[in-house]
């Protein structure tokens, strides 16, 4: 059984690490710090049809993850939404007045938190990178999405162009190679 050591990781890194490990194994042992990392990982795997046993090891937790009886049903759902990638290329949604476009984009990201089927990844490019940076009103919502297993990436070239390299507050920086590979390896890309 694979062991994933998530100690000393900040959220959402533990959820992302476990999610990646579950792509190849259905049974895992995970070492976790108490508090948000443990809570987020347990919530994430239970939502995806796994069962969990926990053991307190003095200053960290060992959790063992294995499939439940209805795993096949939930696995289908995981596999279906795993394919969806959202590409956001602007801080506004659609054509029209700037104020309305920005409001619609904020509304959409906040709404994603509530919808049943989540994308596996969201890529932010061009002016869209401002949404993942300091001052964005969407950081709370994106942290929730990240803790639900959604991977968030911002274009490094775009961050550099807008002088936002040191202001990224959620997710990771990515390059065009990773972005292009993700877009081409999935069956469903939603461009906004």
């Amino acid at each position: 059984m694979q062991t994933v050591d998530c100690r000393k990781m900040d959220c959402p890194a533990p959820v992302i690490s476990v999610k990646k490990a579950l792509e190849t194994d259905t049974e895992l042992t995970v070492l976790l710090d108490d508090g948000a990392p443990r809570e987020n990982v347990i919530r994430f795997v239970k939502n995806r049809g796994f069962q969990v046993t926990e053991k307190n090891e003095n200053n960290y937790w060992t959790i063992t993850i294995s499939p439940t009886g209805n795993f096949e049903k939930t696995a289908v759902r995981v596999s279906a939404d795993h394919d969806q990638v959202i590409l956001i290329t602007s801080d506004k949604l659609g054509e029209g007045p700037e104020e309305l476009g920005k409001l619609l984009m904020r509304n959409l990201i906040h709404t994603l938190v509530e919808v049943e089927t989540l994308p596996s990844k969201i890529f932010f490019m061009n002016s869209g990178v401002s949404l993942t940076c300091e001052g964005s009103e969407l950081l709370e919502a994106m942290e929730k999405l990240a803790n639900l297993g959604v991977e968030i990436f911002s274009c490094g070239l775009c961050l550099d162009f807008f002088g936002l390299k040191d202001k990224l507050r959620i997710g990771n920086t990515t390059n065009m190679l990773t972005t292009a590979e993700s877009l081409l390896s999935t069956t469903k890309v939603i461009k906004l």
Partner: protein
Amino acid sequence: MNNRLMVQEGQLLAIFNSGHRVMKAENLLKSHNICILLIPAPRQLQTDCGLAIRFNEQDRDTVMSVLEQNELLPEFISRYSSAEFVTIWKHNQTL
């Protein structure tokens, strides 16, 4: 706290019936440095414009006073309490 909601226990939501009014109210409250967040109205509180302004109990009096002075009072206000939305104020009505 429900992890799939943008509202935490005890927080308040001001529900408006028009996108223009909610956007005006957002700008106004921000200009008064009140900590608010414009979010989609939760399913249970679906409204015409589908938006709500989230704020904390301690800012309630300031929020209401600023909105009243500018004739931008919401349709109603709900508090998120024990996983339910409870209407605590309605325009032109005493609860």
